């Protein structure tokens, strides 16, 4: 899922300091699961910012709506009615959600209420780690299901750098060495011979580096 973290109350308050009526739009998918931008977090931010504005003698009227998915036009239509009566929208979705709302409401200022972080998994309650860079050409099969492109700080594709200590990365001792994980995993599944294959330089043209990408699936188009 997409992992995000909330901006501080002060930062969001400053973003909307010039508005009197604002819509706080939550997203019910990834950012709800990562406890950053669902109904509950939108509620907390609303209470806090409303009180802060009241104390500044500059009252703010907040409408709160959390839709199923902000990155999907089908659900964005549910924001049309609440958005019609406000001066601006704060999206508590990921960066894609913020931009989808901005496109849907071209005449309204739209602000981001979250800092979008990465594609990751829940390790334990309230701890998420990055697992995928979205490079566009998945190489996980070669590495036993552990991605060195994302999880090795040096993005090495042909073995470890030699700097790891006690199975931990030399760049960040809190992080496990991806190549140690790859070795252990390939050993466990009886595929250590994969390490003998030389991996050619990665084709980065499928990744973000040449600009924003697009996926078209003609078989599903209508």
């Amino acid at each position, binding site marked *: 899922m997409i992992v995000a973290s909330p901006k501080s109350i002060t930062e969001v308050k400053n973003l909307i300091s010039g508005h009197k009526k604002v819509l706080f739009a939550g997203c019910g998918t990834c950012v709800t699961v990562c406890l950053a931008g669902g109904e*509950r977090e939108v*509620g*907390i931010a609303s209470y806090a*910012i*409303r*009180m*802060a504005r*009241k*104390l500044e*003698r500059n009252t703010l009227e907040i409408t709160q709506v959390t839709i199923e998915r902000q990155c999907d036009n089908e659900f964005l239509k549910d924001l049309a009615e609440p958005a019609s009566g406000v001066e601006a929208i704060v999206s508590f979705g990921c960066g894609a959600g913020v931009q989808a709302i901005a496109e849907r409401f071209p005449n309204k200022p739209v602000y981001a209420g979250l800092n979008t972080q990465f594609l990751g998994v829940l390790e334990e309650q309230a701890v998420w780690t990055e697992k995928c860079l979205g490079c566009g050409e998945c190489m996980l099969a070669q590495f036993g299901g552990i991605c060195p492109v994302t999880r090795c700080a040096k993005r090495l594709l042909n073995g470890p750098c030699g700097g790891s200590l006690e199975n931990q990365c030399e760049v960040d001792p809190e992080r496990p060495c991806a190549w140690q994980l790859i070795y252990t995993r390939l050993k466990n599944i009886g595929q250590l011979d994969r390490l003998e294959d030389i991996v050619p330089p990665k084709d980065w043209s499928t990744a973000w580096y040449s600009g924003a990408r697009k996926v078209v699936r003609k078989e599903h188009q209508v």
Partner: protein
Amino acid sequence: MIAANTEQSAKMQDRAVQSAWRGGAPRIIAFCCNYCAFAAADLAGSRRMQYPAGVRIIHTPCTGKLEMEHILDAFEKGVDGVLVVGCLEGGCHYVEGNVRARKRIDRIRSILDEIGIGGSRLQMVNLSDAMAPAFVQHVRGIVETVKALGPSPIRALEQTESAGKV
């Protein structure tokens, strides 16, 4: 009635805030866990123990059921302080509801500090159901803290505005 969900809690808070607060005594809402603090408060009452009259108790199933919004809602409605009373650590009926509640309380305290209301207006303590004297002592404690801080900035502002209108 136990405030088992957000709507019930909001209703009870409305009722508590709108109830007759006498004089200038601090307005405190105490969220009391069903299994300890509520029983301790009940025991304090049975034993005719006196505590400040400006305290309104909201009966909750567990402090772990207390949403952060419930507490923020109380402050928005103008209460001067909130006391959250859960079971002793290790003694929660739902295993770790009180431990989770404490982490949430810490976050709200930081939000209250950030927006200028003051985190010390929110306190959490742990009691058993037999600790009526300690319940009374903690209630007196938060009342003294809030007295020293003065009325909640939200209520102070509302008072100034209503005085201005008159």
